[in-house]
């Protein structure tokens, strides 16, 4: 058992724990914090089913962003859906037998890695070239893109130039998951790729990647437009309600 294997196995445990606990804490915080007033951005759905459809369109099609900025939408959508297929393709390293859905996108997934990279480069170009975006960008906003580009490019390089032993890597990954470690192939590109992924998992709950759970808790998007029909009262507001100057 090499030190490298132990290091990465432990890092995976740590990153997974921080990702899950960190995200869980934020989701718990969002769920617990009341939305005392009805504030959907209207026109808004008047039924729960309508809200589900609205959120679905936001998550899958980035509906509002499409209205807001065609370039951001294009690059953002390419990135996210490239990433989605790439992740599904990567399931083959975590499942035995390989899940059907992962096998299905086996070939497509590689091209999606390129699509994802194009999207990220587009977003980076927009952030660097448009003066308004430069103004609102902190170093972390650029670095986040650089990190994701690093993950995508190191993955593609491994596919085409610096081949690694994927069978051995899968054995390592399954070993980590089953708490019965197998050696990690000591290929530099694989180490870079995994290191960057672990870094991404670590910063996820402390960064703007919180937009992922945030969208589902956004009151302007997830509220039903029915304030006249249904009385909506948050716990802290209901304390005020009982002490309010009663009008008769």
């Amino acid at each position, binding site marked *: 058992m090499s030190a490298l294997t132990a290091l990465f196995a432990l890092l995976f445990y740590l990153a997974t724990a921080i990702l899950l606990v960190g995200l869980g804490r934020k989701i718990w915080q969002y769920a617990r*914090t009341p939305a005392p007033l009805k504030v959907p951005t209207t*026109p808004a759905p008047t039924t729960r089913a309508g809200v589900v459809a609205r959120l679905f369109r936001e998550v899958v099609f980035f509906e509002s962003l499409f209205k*807001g900025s065609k370039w951001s939408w294009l690059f953002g959508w390419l990135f996210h859906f490239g990433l989605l297929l790439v992740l599904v393709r990567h399931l083959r390293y975590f499942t035995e037998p390989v899940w059907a859905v992962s096998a299905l996108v086996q070939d497509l997934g590689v091209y999606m890695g390129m699509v994802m990279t194009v999207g990220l480069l587009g977003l980076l170009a927009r952030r660097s070239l448009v003066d*308004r975006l430069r103004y*609102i960008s902190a170093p972390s906003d650029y670095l986040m893109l650089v990190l994701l580009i690093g993950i995508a490019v190191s993955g593609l390089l491994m596919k085409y130039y610096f081949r690694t032993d994927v069978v051995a890597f899968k054995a390592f990954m399954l070993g980590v998951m089953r708490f019965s470690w197998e050696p990690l192939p000591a290929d530099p590109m694989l180490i870079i790729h995994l290191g960057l992924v672990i870094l991404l998992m670590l910063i996820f709950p402390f960064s703007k990647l919180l937009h992922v759970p945030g969208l589902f808790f956004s009151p302007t998007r997830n509220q039903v437009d029915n304030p006249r029909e249904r009385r909506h009262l948050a716990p802290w507001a209901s304390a005020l309600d009982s002490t309010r100057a009663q009008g008769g």
Partner: protein
Amino acid sequence: MDKAEFETPELKEYTVVPLVQEGSMAHSKPFVAKPEHQEQLGFPGELVDDWKERALDKMGELLGKYRSLQVFLDACVKCGACTDKCHYYLGTADPKNMPVARQDLLRKVYRRYFTLAGRYFPALVGATDLTEAVVEDWYRYYHQCSECRRCSVFCPYGIDTAEITMAGREILDSIGVGQKYSNEIIGKVHRIGNNLGLPEPALADTLEGLEEEVEEDTGVAVKFPLDQEGADVLLVTPSADFFAEPHVDGLIGYGKVFHQAGISWTLSSYASEAANFGIFIGSYEHMQKVAMRIRKAALELGVNRIVVGECGHAWRVAYSFWNTLIGPFDFLDPAYPAPQHICEFTYDLMQRGALKLDKEANDDKVVTFHDSCNVSRASRMGDMPGGQFIIPRALLRASCNHFVDMAPETINENTFCCGGGGGLLTDDLVELRVKGALPRMQALQQVIDENGVTHMAAICAICKSQFTKVLPYYQLGMDMIISVHQLVGDTLVLGDEQ
């Protein structure tokens, strides 16, 4: 501020997104509330010594009370979709008027004191200490936002800068730095019952004068009842409707509709204001206290329905918040929505054939419609989403032969704020108001040039006052702005014949 101190932006043929000009509106800030205006609302009279601790405490408190604030401060990815959506950015080019940058004024402090990344790596994530300079920026730029929510339409996470601005103003109030205009007015409503500080005798006088005027004009005795117990409808309308131009012509229009429908109605001298500036300063408590007068008046007068006059933010508060703040309305007639917008009320009568309109009376006009931000993006009319766009237009089409809409990216939920909403309708912010009106003025100029538009109708007291003030800066007539119910009233055939 003098006319000469700034240049009115030039109207172009199409919208030009300006290049960032840092600090171009750094000089703009409204008068600070005097101690007496602050203290009457329970806020410290002036900047407190321990402002930093108190501001951070307040921020923490608000983060726990409003999910919107917590989620919005976390979720922004700086995608930039909102950066060219704010009328104040388009009109001033000050980058802190880009919605995301306005949010960042609060977000950078949130990150510094409330997040792990900001605590340990402030420079990396753009987090900064809370300093006096930051508080000054808050005061300036949270008073360059009209809380119109246009940015929230385009944000992939629905981040609503209005929520951030309200939180910013709430924090400022809590450390003793309130805005004179809003806080003085809220005090007046608490004391007297309306924004203008108009007492009952003056109101009664005004309404009597209106009755005489309408009878002279039309020969019909249209009544404007005050404090009439047992009336069917309580009408709550912005107090500007009582005498400001062009608002009062709208009030005359409501009166004619009630008269012709044969529905008894009344105004209340106790609740003589639909406007509720509590929303502008983000104060749930003051919003509730202001609104409570209306519940009380409705109960005392024993009415069956509450109808709200033409006012944007008032309709947001009434439609979206009243049931929460002062409901339930179980004492009103369940056959009607509570509350009901005057446009819904009139539309309903039209659908039932209770009103006869002679459109030709408005044949001298080519009319367009300015969607008010709070009506468009924070409320509804009727029973289907988007009714707030359909119903006022239906009234206009029913009362005008010549109606045209402005460019689609400037109407409905995409509408541009008039530039004076959200507690900014004050003379100490004229430059901001003129510049913020630019996108609307441009869309208006286009329909003037292409369709010969002569009038722009609106259903908001703030919009009407704002346009009356800023139209002349753009070489347009201040009397172009008109109430929807003036157009309805002018075409309404009064009398018994059917």
